[in-house]
């Protein structure tokens, strides 16, 4: 931190200003999302309080601030508050005149963090937290009770809000020093850890959510027996497993997009039903 006593002007961001940056980002992130810019200039909007504080009398600097935060950007928005926190601390330093931090730094930081964080963030939030809470809630809703959705609403609101707050605070506290931590060896380990967590949990998720059973009956002496029953006898969930691996292969090896995959899956379902297999 620069010596705050020396010069009069450079003041740190107040709590209120920080809260404003936090909320502007948190609320508006995806307000104008396009494939071209994704979160793009939401950042410029979020950092207007910084401009108002430090660059009131320096329109060129203000412009540079908004312009550097109007480029393509995309990450998971909730855990992404971490980056917002880091950038807030960087822009604060720049605004306060710390010459050691170039105006390019926030841009580089954003560009290098958004990718990994999108991966971790999506798998933790969409891959683990949401499905887990939803499956608990679905259990509570059996029979049509409102308990399930109410539980989900409360639980997700509390947890996700907490995550955004903690992420922003940690980012702001770490500041520049975060870059090492988030890009270095240790970050790779943490990413790896969450990736493993994610892979295991979505493995379980596919067992509990994909519902494909065959209706084929095969003759057993004079009686018939469901093929599904036989499959369940040695590999419960074999069809869902095959299906998800097939879909994954379409995406990862064939590089098909979701729409193409949906068409294929629809075809699979249609043919399966028509030949009497599914």
């Amino acid at each position, binding site marked *: 931190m620069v010596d705050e006593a020396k010069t009069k002007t450079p003041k740190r961001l107040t709590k209120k200003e920080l809260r404003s940056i936090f909320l502007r980002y*948190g609320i*508006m992130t*995806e*307000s104008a*999302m*396009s494939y*071209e810019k*994704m979160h793009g*200039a939401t950042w410029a909007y979020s950092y207007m309080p910084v401009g108002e504080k430090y660059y009131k009398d320096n329109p060129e600097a203000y412009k540079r601030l*908004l*312009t550097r*935060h109007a480029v393509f950007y*995309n990450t998971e*928005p*909730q855990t992404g508050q971490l980056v917002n926190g880091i950038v807030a601390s960087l822009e604060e330093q720049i605004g306060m005149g710390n010459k050691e931090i170039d105006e390019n730094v926030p841009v580089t930081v954003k560009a290098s963090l958004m990718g990994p964080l*999108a991966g971790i963030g*999506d798998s933790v939030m*969409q*891959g683990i937290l*949401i*499905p*887990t809470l*939803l*499956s*608990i809630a*679905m259990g509570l*809703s059996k029979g*049509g*009770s*409102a308990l*399930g959705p109410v539980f*989900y*609403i409360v639980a997700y609101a509390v947890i*996700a*809000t907490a995550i955004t707050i903690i992420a922003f605070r940690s980012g702001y506290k770490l500041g520049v020093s975060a870059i090492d931590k988030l890009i270095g060896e*240790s970050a*790779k380990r943490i990413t*790896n850890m969450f990736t493993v967590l994610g*892979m*295991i*949990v979505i*493995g379980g*998720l*596919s067992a*509990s*959510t*994909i*519902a494909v059973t065959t209706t084929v009956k095969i003759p057993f002496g004079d009686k018939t027996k469901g093929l599904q029953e036989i499959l369940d006898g040695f590999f*419960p*969930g074999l069809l*869902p*497993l095959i*299906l*998800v691996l097939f879909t*994954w292969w379409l995406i990862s090896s064939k590089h098909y997009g979701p729409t193409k995959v*949906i068409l294929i*899956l*629809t075809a699979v379902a249609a043919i399966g*039903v*028509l030949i009497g297999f599914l």
Partner: protein
Amino acid sequence: MNGTLFIQACLVGLLSYLGAVDCPWMYGVVGGFYILGRPLVAGLMCGLIFGDVQAGVLCGLAVQAVFIASMHTGGTSNTEITYASYGGIGLAMATTQNPAIAVTLAIFIGQTFGLLFYNLRMAGFSYYNHKAEKACRELDKRGLIMNQIVYPQIVTFLVRAVPVWAAIYFGKVAVQRLLDVVPVTITDIITVLGGVLPALGIAMLMNMLIKKKVELIYFCFGFVMIAFAHLSTVALVFIAALIAYLIFNMSGHNGQNQDDSSKVAVDTADEYEDKDLF
């Protein structure tokens, strides 16, 4: 004109806007896309609106099962879950209140109109993005706010709330007629498709997480723990966390921590902790 239905359709349309991924007003995606946008919550809401919470929740439950692994990554979605939720459940509540019908309608609406509107809008917003960027360069604060927030929100409201409102208000009769004539095979196929669809979301996530084919072992482990050992997802999360933590520690035992391993005495365990993870 059916006054009650009109108001109901309006409310559902409004909710389908508030639960959209690009709607900011519910604290961004936290309260919007990830809470209001989930079919289980949509079921509760529609239940309240149409005066039968139990039926609403049951529809929500059925639709949620199809979309539990729905993913929204990198701006791409395998389904337009909000159209699906409110269009499907809303229409079902306005007509038969039958969960199976809700699922059919949700899949149909989500995968066709839903994705269409979504992708058109995602493409179209480039226009506002460019204007917002220009506003940044010119320090046009009002322009930034209008192009980044106001105009896009008006557009997204129109392409979401209006079609959903129309679908419910005018679709009621059409749906009822359709249900009488649609062949049972089609219903069967859509039912099967409902069981198959979660595979897509999961496969998208796998594509993000799994870098080497060997890592499928993690995925399969998760699958097996649910399919064979009949654990719940909650239990699996704990088990996965242990494995992930072991791997985190494991990877930490080479490289940097090596040289000074002798220095890490028992009493410095706490500082060491910070350096590592939590």
